[in-house]
């Protein structure tokens, strides 16, 4: 016999200690009228948002609402998809990210990314961390850098005795934390995370969330997540995306609401946000 609260559709947001939103006065990104096309298809339409420094911005919404597409615009990963085209503007510290003289390689050194599935290189733990610094011509002491980085990512104690073993021998959660460590080894300003916990169990997820919280003191983090609880727990601000279906059955993602996380979860301005977070849809 199941209790009513376990029944699907009846999920209620439990009490969460929301984090205080910080100021947007010193923005890292300013997004204006951003649209992303795959071929002729407009996957995301007219997104406007400002991302603040050293805080965690969560992007939530149902599948196909374009949140992953949007996050991939911030470090120009969409450039790698031949048919993808970006319209509108993203400024990074007042510099047009898609300006003609901007080198995407330089962009990605400042704006790192962690992916949905842990994707360590098939190399040793040490080499995974050292890869980013090596390709960008790091001249200092790599051993020190690797230790510092792993300590920073709270992984040093777990791996210090097996730095030379394959990263693929780690558990999924450790692999993902290694990927985060690998990203901060190049000292970016921003870390983009595209559903970083969707392949992990709750314990590994909790560790990643702890790490994110700690890293947000130094880094600006944008995280796409399917898990609304996660957005509520870790983020300062939350953006809710949804998809409109047009007459031809094509889906166009759009930003519905973007505000302090506590407002999104407790007093959403838009009915669609309300429906989504209360589990009535999506």
């Amino acid at each position, binding site marked *: 016999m199941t209790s009513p609260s376990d029944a699907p559709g009846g999920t209620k947001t439990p009490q969460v200690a929301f984090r205080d939103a910080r100021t947007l006065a010193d923005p890292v990104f300013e997004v204006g009228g951003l649209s992303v096309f795959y071929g002729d298809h407009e996957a995301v339409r007219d997104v406007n948002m400002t991302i603040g420094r050293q805080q965690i911005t969560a992007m939530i919404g149902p599948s196909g609402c374009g949140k992953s597409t949007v996050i991939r615009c911030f*470090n120009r990963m969409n450039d790698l998809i*031949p048919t993808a085209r970006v319209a509108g503007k993203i400024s990074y510290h007042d510099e047009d990210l898609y300006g003609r003289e901007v080198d995407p390689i330089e962009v990605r050194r400042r704006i*790192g990314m962690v992916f949905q*599935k842990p994707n360590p290189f098939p190399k040793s733990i040490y080499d995974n961390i050292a890869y*980013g610094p090596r*390709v960008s011509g790091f001249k200092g002491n790599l051993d020190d850098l690797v230790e510092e980085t792993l300590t920073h990512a709270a992984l040093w104690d777990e791996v210090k005795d097996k730095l030379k073993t394959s990263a693929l021998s780690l558990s999924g959660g450790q692999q993902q934390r290694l990927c985060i460590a690998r990203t901060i080894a*190049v000292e970016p300003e921003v870390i983009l995370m595209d559903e970083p916990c969707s392949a992990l169990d709750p314990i590994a997820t909790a560790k990643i969330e702890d790490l994110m919280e700690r890293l947000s003191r130094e880094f600006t983090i944008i995280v796409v997540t399917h898990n609304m609880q996660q957005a509520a727990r870790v983020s300062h601000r939350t953006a809710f995306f949804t998809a409109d279906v047009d007459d031809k059955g094509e889906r166009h993602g759009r930003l519905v609401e973007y505000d302090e996380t506590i407002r999104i979860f407790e007093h959403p301005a838009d009915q669609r946000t309300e429906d989504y977070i209360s589990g009535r849809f999506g």
Partner: protein
Amino acid sequence: MTSDVIPRAPAAGAPETRRLKGRGTPLRERFFHLSLLASLAVGVIFLVALLAYVVVEGWPRLDSRIWSNFPDIINPANAGAQSAIMGTIWIIGFTALYCLPTGILTAIYLEEYADPLRWYNRAIEINIQNLAAVPSIVYGILGLGIISRGLGFGQTVMTAALTLSLLVLPIVIISSREAIRAVPRSIRDASLALGATQWQTVRRQVLPAAVPGMATGAILALSRAIGEAAPLLLLGGLTFITFNPTGAQSAFTVLPIQIFNWISQSRAEFTALASAAIVVLLVILLAMNSLAIWLRNRYARRW
């Protein structure tokens, strides 16, 4: 409330306990299984029969003479295939030198750099697929007309190696592309997201991960080249050469041509000699395949 509970009791009318005993393997399953084994047997039986026949036939001549002596038309007891063995090694060496870098670089371009939406890249792709199906004799004609006469390389190791390179290039390209494509997209994304350039990503992530597959493809391609006689006959691979090649400019013969020559002789001793030479050719092939497996394991073990 009860509707939430997944019903555990069997639906009405079903037997109370399920039977665990099967009714034996169905006839269709067995037939399928047998036909699999039969198909496997065809290949294995013919291969074993061929090997056995060749070894038995060549046994009297399988001694050091086969690689220490040169061909001798008058006295078969004195004849050996040293010039052909050395010719084969020289030509395969040069073929590898020409076709592997060209093929692998082409594959990298097509997989990593070419925009698949451009018509010319698609045209190149179709072309390569078709080239793999062109009969080898046509490459012989090409080699004769362009490389040997047109470019003036003459009937040399160089001409032969260039022609065989063209012949196996599509195989190298196709197999290298497959090896490159097998490297997951996520590895490239990870590298690029760390600020690596495309070249760094290819050089440090994609190629090392693709080496095992490329090595296998390369060996397959060279194995095809090593067994070719037809284009080399056209190019003037001579059947009677009593000296070893000394470089790219030498005249040459190769094992398949030498075998072809001996088999067409009427005396039985020469037929035995041909069998012995076939065994030598097979041993070289086996050695190459072992090298490929060794390379693959060596690189695979690193991670």
